[in-house]
């Protein structure tokens, strides 16, 4: 069965990746090990096949990753011969670039902005490919495919270039760079259907499994070294799965029996909560995402 809309989205994403390779000197692909970045790697391989991916993968590691994600990351990059560059939030903390948050809701989510910007500067990256989609959150609805960032990595929603037809203007001044989002027009469901169609391996935490969790402000957090219990809280064992694989301190699980891709697609298609709805950091304020984006978050 031909899936015409996925073919169109794939073709568009490949086109964007090739424009990136052609228009920039030192692009890199932001890699988190999550499903979106795994789709990005597949698309990058297709875009340049039979040549290898002409740019490195950059992983900003908070140190609080799910071990399943890291294992898959290392296996995949070995298999396809991609260049992987890892920069850690721990190093940024050790170098005194950032200060670790404290308290039961401590998260390294904000700290990784500094690590990311430092890494982009160190690698002289002029184009960072990301797997963000416009459907994820309101503030992203106006994001461009080629998103211009100033010398401080900041995004100014008032100063973005109009994008017409399929013509992308990647010109910039020295020190400025672009964030490039080939999956802009994809939805969460498209990503899952593409993973199924292309048979892409994803970390096991996306599938239903039993795990000890604690429910905090409506978010189910996994038991790990980085999450400590507050007064009155207790670990409970439940069948859950994750919809994103960010930092363990703020990535919430959902109660779900979906153990196969087909079941996940079924679940996503009828979902009543967006995938970001399970992220504690977005609930902090109504304009949370916009604030982080202005500072250079993806």
């Amino acid at each position: 069965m031909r899936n015409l809309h996925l073919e169109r989205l794939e073709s568009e994403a490949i086109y964007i990746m090739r424009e990136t390779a052609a228009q920039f000197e030192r692009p890199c692909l932001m890699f988190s090990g999550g499903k979106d970045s795994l789709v990005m790697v597949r698309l990058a391989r297709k875009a340049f096949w039979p040549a290898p991916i002409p740019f490195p993968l950059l992983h900003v590691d908070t140190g609080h990753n799910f071990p399943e994600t890291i294992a898959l990351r290392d296996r995949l990059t070995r298999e396809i011969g991609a260049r992987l560059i890892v920069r850690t939030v721990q190093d940024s903390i050790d170098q005194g670039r950032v200060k670790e948050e404290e308290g039961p809701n401590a998260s390294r989510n904000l700290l990784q902005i500094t690590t990311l910007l430092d890494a982009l500067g160190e690698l002289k990256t002029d184009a960072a490919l990301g797997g963000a989609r416009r459907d994820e959150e309101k503030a992203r609805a106006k994001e461009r495919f080629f998103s211009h960032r100033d010398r401080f990595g900041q995004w100014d929603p008032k100063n973005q270039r109009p994008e017409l037809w399929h013509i992308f203007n990647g010109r910039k001044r020295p020190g400025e760079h672009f964030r490039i989002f080939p999956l802009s027009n994809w939805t969460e469901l498209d990503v899952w259907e593409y993973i199924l169609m292309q048979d892409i391996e994803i970390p096991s935490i996306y599938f239903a499994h039993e795990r000890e969790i604690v429910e905090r402000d409506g978010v189910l957090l996994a038991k790990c070294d980085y999450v400590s219990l507050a007064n009155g809280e207790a670990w409970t064992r439940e069948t859950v799965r994750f919809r994103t694989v960010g930092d363990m301190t703020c990535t919430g699980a959902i109660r779900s029996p979906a153990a196969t891709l087909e079941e996940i697609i079924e679940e996503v298609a009828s979902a009543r909560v967006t995938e970001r709805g399970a992220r504690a950091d977005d609930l902090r304020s109504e304009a949370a995402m916009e604030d982080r984006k202005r500072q250079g978050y993806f």
Partner: protein
Amino acid sequence: MDILRFTTAGHVDDGKSTLIGRLLYDSKAIHQDQYQSIERASLGQGDGAVNLALVTDGLRAEREQGITIDVAYRYFSTSRRKFIIADTPGHIQYTRNMVTGASTAELAIILIDARNGVLQQSRRHGFIASLLQIPHVLVAINKMDLVDYSEEAYRNIVGDYREFVERLDIDDVVFIPISALKGDNVVEPSKRMDWYRGPTILHHLETVKVGAGRNVVDFRFPVQYVIRPGQRFRGYAGRVASGSIAPGEDIVALPSGKESRIRSIVCMEQDVQRARAGDSVVITVEDNIDIGRGDMIVRRRNKPLVTRSIDADICWMSEEPMNTNRRWILQHTTRNVQAAVGNVIYRMNIDTLHRETADALGLNDIGRIEFELADPLFVDAYRVNRETGSFILIDPDANNTVAAGMIRGAAQHVPPVGRTPAMERLVSPGVVWDELFIAREARERRQGHQAAVLWMTGLSGSGKSTIARALEKRLFEQGVRTMSIDGDYVRHGLCGDLSFSEADRAENIRRVGETARLCFEQGNITICALVSPRRRDRAYPRHVIPEGRFFEVHVDCDLETCKRRDPKGLYKKALDNEIRDFTGISAPYEPPEYPELRLQTDALSVQECVDRVVAMLAAQGIIPSTA
């Protein structure tokens, strides 16, 4: 399942955001947490009801001002289709946003408030949809609940808008009466408008034909990237802009003109048998020919127009008005060339659809402009091919995108509207033009050479008159019939009533152009020597003389040399402010972009200049080459 991209246009008060909110909500594309978030925000606005419009209101600044200021993209799907909405604000100052949203859309929803009827902005939206060649237009007549679901009110608006749309270039227009607020005819058919038997908005969106705007005939493959993993493989990556291609078919690469044949179309899983419009593929060819990014692979028997000038409709998108003396980077498919404005033909008043005189375009202006290009482009008219007929202009200093362009074709030196009214030549009332008693062709046969007009333009002191005199003497001695019109002569008498203002200079050129034409029609090689500093003024004589018979000769000399020569002492006077509006000192000179001949008089002798003009006339068949 396929994809329909559509755009929505309407004033803030037309209920556009409510319509989108309704589509998303009724098709269950709004998630619970999103709904809660707009519920929370609605409370803050204190009007009680949940405001569906807030679904589409992205950025905080906009939420505070209560308006949308940029194109936002929304997604939803039904069991039949995936939809991408480019939601564009409809304010007058946001023409650029609608153009942006429309550039990738296959359908436009234009909202009209049933209480207000067809307003100027409804026309403006229709015009932009037509300009951008959106294949389908859906006019949603909203707020029917506020006109008691009146069929008459609906019919009146449909009649008015239809009359307007007939003047545009839109094939498919559908009207639907709705209430976005109450949900009538958006997703569910209305029970309150039984007089309406057409589709709901969603039904129309689900069933309208997609791909109608795609060109499936003309194969165009702009090369994006060359893939060379090693010596043994060389592939050209790109997205098929239009048409299709299969292995074994003959191709030619532009601009080199090298021919070859498709060997394979490579994809990671397996090679494909045919690549079609929209497919991202890698092409390999049989022969080892040099092809790089910015080149275009096409069929041998179906080539685009290869041109160094274009005539295009432009939407200006920068806060800074267009400066016609600058050069821009023109990005077309994967190719970048330098472009200069050759001629501003008109600005479109998009409220009245009248063409207006313009020197340049400002933010949100739409106009028609001719550009000269430093390198050739491979283009099709936008009307037949949106992919190879579109381009953007980039400011080479600020790097921002300043304009969107839709190509009509190669530049034809179309006379600017209003600038030289006599481009539709002035005629006194009551006179009749008879064909000349002796036709020019008869004179040309008898005298053994063709008639022509040589237009020498250049700064004062560059040597125009000197060369003109020497040239006329040479031609006269060879038995060629000549006439001579010198700028200084016509300023005595014929144009003695004119000043050196912009308008009078234009009139001066018009009169000389017409005089030259009379001489030309009587078989003469007519030599005109005038400063004629403005490109658009010089377009007039070019316009009234047949193609191939008008020769613009740029008598080029740097300003310092002219000042030093100063044969009439004019530069000194100008520098002493005794003469105002003196070209080169206090008034601009616009050198010709593509003169038929350029003579650099600071490097060439008078005789050498004359030799070159004579050689050009011989080469063009105006005079016999032995003459």
